[in-house]
């Protein structure tokens, strides 16, 4: 093997080597190469070096995974899913960090993603029943089938005769869609009840660690005497690029959008200044309680939800 090939061979195995998972022969080859290769030796040392808060020792779920928990956790399957769930059940630190980031500190059991080990047993072979019993089953099945045919023949109406035509079934009334916002009525100014305005010092910062659905991450909004409150545009929305359309909705516990603002990102979060959202009382009234402030940015369709409590 040439020196260049050996170099590539070593680097492809450096992570496994640093975890002690290579067999003794491969480990010895890498040790030998490291002894004579300054670059690889330095890189191997740097790879294993710890940095502030870095968890290269593997005691916790890696920080990169916790930070992307909403995407990372849904990719887990099989053994790795079981191992992460097991860790979460006993690690207060990882649970606490997930909750602070706004996620539920749990990994739900999803049958399709779980390890196959429990269900991969060979199917049990049942002994065949005696011949007389099998004949009795066949006769019974035949009688049941004949009875079914007779019932169907009596119940199904005859085909329409020429001239009668097919029966047209009219669709019934469509049930109201409670998940989509009601269309604004004539003269209704719902948009103004959620509008953009200049930044103010007393604007409420939306609980900035909110990303998931943790109960602890709720921002309280007090409408006050004037029946209005200023809300800062969340960081992760303000830093998005381009000028896509943005819809901001305040959704009540019944799933109705009681406030809505359609705008564009450049209006919501200009590069050269900061703007706040103005949430005002009005009709429909904002009853005290829990709501979701939903930002839909699209395309590509980024959606962020923030839990708010109106007092």
């Amino acid at each position, binding site marked *: 093997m040439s020196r260049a090939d050996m170099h590539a061979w070593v680097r492809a195995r450096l992570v496994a080597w640093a975890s002690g998972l290579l067999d003794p022969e491969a480990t010895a080859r890498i040790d030998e190469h490291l002894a004579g290769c300054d670059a690889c030796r330095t890189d191997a040392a740097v790879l294993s070096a710890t940095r502030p808060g870095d968890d*290269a020792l593997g005691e916790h779920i*890696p920080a990169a995974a916790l930070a992307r928990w909403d995407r990372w956790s849904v990719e887990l399957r099989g053994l790795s899913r079981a191992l992460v769930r*097991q860790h979460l059940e006993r690690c207060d630190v990882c649970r606490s960090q997930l909750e602070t980031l706004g996620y539920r500190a749990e990994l739900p059991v999803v049958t399709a993603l779980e390890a196959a080990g429990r269900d991969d047993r060979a199917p049990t072979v049942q002994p065949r029943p005696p011949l007389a019993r099998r004949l009795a089953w066949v006769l019974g099945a035949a009688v049941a089938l004949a009875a079914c045919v007779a019932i169907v023949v009596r119940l199904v109406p005859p085909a329409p005769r020429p001239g009668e035509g097919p029966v047209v079934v009219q669709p019934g009334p469509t049930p109201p869609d409670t998940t989509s916002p009601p269309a604004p009525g004539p003269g209704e100014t719902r948009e103004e009840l959620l509008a953009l305005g200049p930044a103010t010092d007393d604007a409420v910062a939306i609980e900035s660690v909110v990303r998931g659905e943790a109960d602890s991450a709720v921002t309280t909004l007090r409408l006050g005497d004037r029946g209005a409150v200023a809300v800062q545009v969340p960081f992760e929305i303000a830093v998005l690029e381009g000028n896509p359309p943005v819809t901001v909705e305040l959704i009540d516990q019944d799933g109705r959008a009681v406030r809505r603002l359609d705008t564009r990102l450049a209006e919501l979060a200009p590069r050269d200044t900061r703007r706040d959202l103005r949430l005002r009382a009005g009709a429909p009234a904002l009853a005290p309680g829990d709501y979701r402030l939903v930002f839909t940015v699209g395309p590509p369709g980024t959606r962020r939800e923030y839990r708010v409590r109106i007092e």
Partner: protein
Amino acid sequence: MNESIPAARDPRRELEFLRERVRRLARGRWASDLEDVAMEAWVNLDRALRREVARNLDALMTRVARFAWIDFVRRRRNDPLATPEDLLDDDATTGDRPPPDDVDPDALAMLRFFVLEYFARHGATECADIARHWFAGRNHAEIGRLVGEKRDAIAKRWERCRRRVVDAFRADPPEPLRGLASGFDGGFL
């Protein structure tokens, strides 16, 4: 042991600080990923602060944000769909030498996590103890000296542990390590 965050700390303020640092490092690039980077930095900060009290919290946060940023840039470079923008040299912003480009530090942290967790699942505490020493950079001879055993005894015991975990990972490779999985299938281990 109380693992909750001490009342004296303010995670929201810490996160805001890290976001600001990350935003400065990004210089307007990759805006949609900055929240992930800030969160990763916060997790590392939280872990650092659980180990020791920071003499200068702002300096520590600045350092943690910079490392998270460098790791992010490295991932982008290693992405096969990397753009010319991804290849900009950001390492000049740090005096600490980052891990090499062709070695994935995420994979190392993931692999070590799954190894320890596998041993914990099977109650293999001796295996986990040797693994922790190995991850901390100690060889078999050093581990032997620490636990009062001969080097060969440690090496033999670790070989049994290693085979257990490698067999399990070959049968069901940890999902985030699919990039490394060729190692499991192709005889790397």
